[in-house]
């Protein structure tokens, strides 16, 4: 357990800010891809760090802090606490991916990566979540099933569909 983690566990906000600075980019990228919306990702990132502050005393160092935080972030996003925000934006993301992607990166990258980001944002929510967790973040289907409450077979069906939709989107 690093010094910053140990100090933050005791309530040291300066140490906690260091943890934020070190991990904000990783958490925001995850929130952005899972939610498909830049504004939602900003809210979710804040939620993740507020939850981290509350839960940090329970971290015992059995796993790497970064892995533990990552899992916590996935739980926060999947918990649907901000489903009211997503309600409209899912439709927007589906209908107009350009509008979504335009707001999501201050420094957009051209070419395939940008096309892929846009296509991911335009996926149906379930397919997007499984694709991001499996093919970007490296979770196994069994882990995704545990995190989301769906069956592993359903997770595989979502993934197959997501890959097909993305392939078609990239070919257009």
């Amino acid at each position, binding site marked *: 357990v690093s010094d910053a983690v140990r100090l933050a566990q005791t309530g040291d906000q300066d140490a906690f800010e260091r943890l934020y600075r070190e991990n904000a980019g990783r958490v925001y990228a995850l929130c952005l891809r899972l939610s498909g919306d830049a504004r939602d990702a900003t809210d979710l990132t*804040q939620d993740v760090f507020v939850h981290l502050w509350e839960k940090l005393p329970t971290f015992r160092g059995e796993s790497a802090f970064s892995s533990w935080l990552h899992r916590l972030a996935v739980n926060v996003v999947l918990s649907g606490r901000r489903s009211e925000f997503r309600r*409209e934006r899912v439709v927007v993301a589906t209908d107009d991916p350009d509008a979504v992607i335009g707001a999501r990166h201050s420094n957009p990258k051209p070419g395939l990566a940008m096309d892929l980001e846009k296509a991911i944002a335009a996926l149906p929510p*379930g397919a997007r979540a499984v694709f991001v967790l499996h093919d970007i973040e490296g979770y196994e289907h069994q882990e995704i099933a545990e995190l989301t409450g769906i069956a592993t*077979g359903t997770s595989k069906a979502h993934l197959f569909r997501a890959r097909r939709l993305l392939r078609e989107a990239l070919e257009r």
Partner: protein
Amino acid sequence: MNCERVQDLLYRYAAGTLAPELKREIDEHMAGCDACRAEAERVKPVLVGAARLPRNIEPPADLWPSISGQIGRRKLVEGRFAPAVARPWWTRPPILAAAAMALVVLSSTVTTLVVRRPPGSPAVTVQTAALSGDFLTLEAQYVRASDEILGALNQGEVKIAPETRAILERNLRVIDQAIVESRDALARDPANLELKDMLLSTYEHKLDLLRRVTST
């Protein structure tokens, strides 16, 4: 290594992050498995692209002042935080309402999936019209189309190699299990358009697999 495991590991294979032994096992499997090799080729651009996406994206603004303000108002709590929900967020009512809206838009688009006719089997056309209003008809069309190809296979009208058939059967078991689970979920929540869409997508997947196997 079986097809299912190969498919699970494709993203790491494409990203080049597999242990050498695993990579060798997949290479050996693909050398003798047309279906897996073809699938790997199809999804390669997606998986290679996914592997190259940046893992860090800085938030558009510094969120620390807001976070600091929020945690400053809260006590440090020793207790555990609320557990992850049992139900995924995309199946919750507000998200389903959004999905329903999206599907209403989609349902105005009429597309036709023409199934390539495998040698010796009947031509099949599935009309994917009015998705939200004609689910049962569409489901019946997919089931019939798949059954016709399976029937042609079982009656020997279309011949495939025994190894290919074994692989096909393993894949179909996974797909059929997903169909059963989706249908069970739909039975409990018949108005769920996201589930209907996912179920139709799974039928499409099954039909596509059968079509590809019998047309080679």
